[in-house]
């Protein structure tokens, strides 16, 4: 039997020395290891039943969650799944983040911290549900041991354990200490989702109230004793570097403590307040060496991509039959070129991180989508071993993929390392954030379709030309140079990102062309542009075939029943084919990605003045299982804000090697007056786990673009809409 008297974590006394006092002084709920138990040292820890579940004597259940909460509701959803198996009282459930350092010290017990790709629930549901179930088994066993009865004769509901035969009862809080010493079960059966009572329900989020009063602390709000603030400027042209700067010109400005070069390409000013740091930074004379990319513009990038559309060499993503022969022998061919621009994530909270470096250890507090990557960046920048570094996660003021990167963590640690013992918070200005994003990749796509005399699609060639995210960020994941993620939504088979059409002769290939603007995972990733390319072009094919877009798709989707069911669900709810109000036109789109099947119907009118009004969206989604329907609705609605912002306004252009849009005045986004009514149809078919944070974004733009075509006869093939004139000719 394994005897564990208390949490190994609480004994470890994380943040000895300066860090511990810092932890004490935070004055808000901090992750365990930083909180009261660690600070008071001798105070007994609440028993850890297992890595996922802690039960306190007052019956509070703490669910530990390694994934990050950035608004998408993962914290609540995962807590629901654990609570479901644990059979605890939902009103007693709270959550906390383990740190990646603690996880590392325990053999990566909390597994993957990465929160992207809509994988929060779908990739941790199994081990977290098992964690909840195992804890329940141990708690019940502890009660049974105390009573000397078989555990099988005990019942549990809402954290109360009973032994009906003897009428005895106890609670999780009372047996938690003993349960922590029970041998963990080897066989941990999980509930059938049809029996769920906590999961699957539209429960309120666990993190709402503090967000209504200003009490929620984001990274940018962090306070520590003796904290200094830093503002930073990286070379506006990526690939450039600092030639020189004149620190003496600003060192005597109010509050300024230090001017620090950061790497070869950036300079930071550290001051008592951030505003003073920024003011001095703006006054700091900096001379840049703009480097080899200073001549690049949007036009030169577009020309490079255009060349790729006809290049002979390309990576193949999906191939069947002989598309080129089918096209050559077709009764009718259709050809079109589409394009998708750079986009910035534009999280509302700009990038920030706080670092405290001493020769002994380094601690970082930051909003991150990937705690382990942030820890690795901390280790690298601090020059200290991993065992003496840790990252303390804070809820994110938006992530959308941007905070999966750790560039700002590296910078914060580099600055703090020049001021040992002093915590330094680095906060980016909005302008810095806009210039130094990891941008939605830029691509173009040439599509050629072959129709036979009956209007049947016999061949399709889709040539994508442009940027690879993996080549920019994870080159080790390329497959002989090929980026498989480029083909999201277009894969022939496999459990994810599968194309919903069967085309007898199909070729989808990618001519990789990588400009110097660094690419990143932008909410929806490559599904965004691929859905536009595919779904708008399928509408073009339907038009050429003289067929209704829904009927045309249905024929191609015979072998893809899950895709088809979701498309049908959206079409039915929207009343596809039924009369619309005068001037209102419909468009539709479907795609599969991040494990889920999605479809949308948009109802749109275009005024004489060319103004687009989106009246209504019907969006259907099959995520396999619906863990919290009201949160799925929130994610689906939010997906339209993100997807329609990109459609209407989103575009980062390049001049002299630099991104031109530096704030929301030139990078506009959807606001309330343009937000359509969204009706969400959730059709969970079971048997698989799909994500909900991203897939729907991909159908937002093509559904609206197809409706705009229906309204105007104008086929928009390049985002954003603001660059197009939709006035009646």
């Amino acid at each position, binding site marked *: 039997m394994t005897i564990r008297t208390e949490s190994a974590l609480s004994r470890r006394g994380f943040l000895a020395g300066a860090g511990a006092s810092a932890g004490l002084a935070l004055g808000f709920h901090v992750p365990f290891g930083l909180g009261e138990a660690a600070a008071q040292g001798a105070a007994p820890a609440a028993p850890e039943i297992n890595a996922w579940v802690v039960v306190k004597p007052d019956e509070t259940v703490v669910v530990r969650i390694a994934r990050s909460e*950035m*608004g*998408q*509701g993962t914290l609540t959803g995962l807590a629901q799944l654990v609570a479901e198996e644990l059979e605890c009282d939902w009103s007693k459930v709270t959550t906390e983040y383990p740190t990646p350092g603690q996880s590392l010290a325990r053999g990566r017990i909390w597994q993957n911290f990465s929160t992207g790709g809509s994988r929060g629930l779908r990739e941790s549901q199994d081990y977290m549900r098992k964690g909840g179930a195992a804890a329940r088994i141990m708690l019940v066993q502890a009660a049974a041991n105390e009573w000397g009865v078989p555990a099988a004769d005990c019942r549990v509901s809402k954290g109360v354990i009973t032994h009906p035969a003897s009428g005895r009862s106890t609670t999780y809080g009372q047996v938690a200490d003993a349960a922590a010493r029970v041998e963990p079960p080897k066989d941990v059966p999980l509930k059938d989702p049809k029996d769920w009572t906590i999961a699957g329900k539209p429960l*309120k*989020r666990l*993190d*709402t*109230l503090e*967000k*209504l*009063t*200003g*009490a*929620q*602390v*984001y990274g*940018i*709000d962090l*306070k520590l004793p003796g904290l200094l*603030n830093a503002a930073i400027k990286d070379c506006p042209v990526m690939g450039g570097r600092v030639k020189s700067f004149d620190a003496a010109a600003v060192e005597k400005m*109010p509050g300024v403590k230090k001017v620090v070069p950061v790497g070869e390409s950036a300079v930071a000013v550290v001051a008592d*307040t*951030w*505003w003073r740091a920024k*003011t001095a930074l703006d006054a700091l004379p900096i001379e840049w060496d703009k480097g080899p990319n200073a001549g690049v513009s949007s036009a030169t990038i577009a020309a490079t991509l255009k060349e790729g559309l006809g290049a002979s060499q390309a990576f193949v993503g999906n191939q069947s039959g002989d598309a080129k022969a089918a096209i050559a022998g077709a009764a009718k061919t259709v050809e079109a070129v589409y394009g998708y621009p750079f986009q910035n994530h*534009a*999280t*509302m*909270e*700009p990038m920030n991180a706080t670092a405290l470096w001493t020769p002994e250890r380094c601690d970082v507090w930051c909003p991150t989508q990937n705690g382990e990557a942030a820890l690795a960046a901390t280790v690298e920048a601090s020059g200290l071993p991993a065992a003496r570094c840790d990252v303390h996660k804070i*809820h*994110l*003021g*938006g*992530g*959308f993929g941007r905070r999966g990167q750790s560039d700002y963590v590296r910078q914060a640690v580099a600055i703090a390392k020049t001021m040992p013992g002093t915590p330094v918070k680095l*906060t980016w*200005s*909005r*302008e810095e954030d806009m210039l130094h994003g990891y941008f939605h990749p830029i691509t173009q796509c040439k599509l050629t379709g072959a129709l036979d005399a009956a209007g049947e699609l016999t061949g399709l060639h889709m040539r994508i030309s442009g940027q690879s995210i993996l080549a920019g960020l994870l080159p080790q994941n390329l497959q002989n140079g090929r980026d498989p993620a480029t083909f999201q939504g277009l894969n022939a088979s496999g459990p994810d990102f599968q194309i919903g059409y069967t085309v007898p002769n199909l070729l989808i290939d990618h001519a990789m062309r990588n400009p110097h603007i660094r690419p990143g995972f932008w909410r929806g990733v490559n599904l965004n542009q691929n859905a536009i390319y595919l779904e708008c072009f399928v509408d073009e094919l339907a038009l050429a075939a003289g067929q209704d877009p829904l009927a045309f798709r249905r024929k191609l989707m015979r072998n893809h029943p899950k895709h088809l069911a979701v498309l049908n669900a959206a079409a039915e709810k929207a009343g596809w084919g039924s009369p619309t109000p005068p001037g209102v036109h419909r468009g539709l789109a479907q795609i599969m990605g991040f494990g889920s099947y999605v479809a949308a119907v948009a109802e749109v009118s275009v005024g004489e003045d060319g103004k687009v009004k989106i009246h209504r969206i019907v969006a259907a989604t099959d995520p396999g299982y619906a863990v919290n329907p*009201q949160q799925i609705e*929130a994610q689906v*609605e*939010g997906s*339209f*804000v*993100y997807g329609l*912002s990109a459609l209407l306004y989103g575009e980062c252009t390049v001049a002299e090697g630099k991104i031109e849009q530096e*704030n*929301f*005045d030139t990078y506009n*986004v*959807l*606001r*309330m*007056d343009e*937000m359509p*009514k*969204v009706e969400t149809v959730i059709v969970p078919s079971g048997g698989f786990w799909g994500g909900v944070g991203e897939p729907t974004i991909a159908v937002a733009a093509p559904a609206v673009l197809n409706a705009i075509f229906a309204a105007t006869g104008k086929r928009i093939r390049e985002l954003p809409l603001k660059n197009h004139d939709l006035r009646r000719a």
Partner: protein
Amino acid sequence: MARLNVNGRMVEFEAEPDTPLLWVIREQLGLTGTKYGCGVAQCGACTVHVDGVATRTCALPVSAFNDGQKIVTIEGLSPDGSHPVQKAWAALDVPQCGYCQTGMIMSAAALLQAKPKPTDADINAEMTNICRCGTYNRVRAAIKLAADGGEVRGG
């Protein structure tokens, strides 16, 4: 030393006169519920009430304000989150990441003060804050809920 009336208290602080009110609130006064989003009065994350009027504070220097004005931040909207707008927000679980929401709430509270029964057009005109998570429809519903007295109807 400058003085302002913030959340019903007279506070004294030192700051350069051209410091935006936002940064005095956040740094000199330590009230971090008011957020920095853009610095150019575009996003509304920095919204507070100045004599009851929703005001974006990131681009207005502190010297433009005086201690005769009543400044209220999210921390002063209610002592315990019980303002009708906060209650409506809780009832409809409006926030996602939440970063823009304090500014949204301050904008909505000022709107309802001026127009207790706002139309959709009123909401569109006054609620121009940016939310990137996409809570707009719930924000609209919560404003209407607060205007209706905060009772969540069945169904």
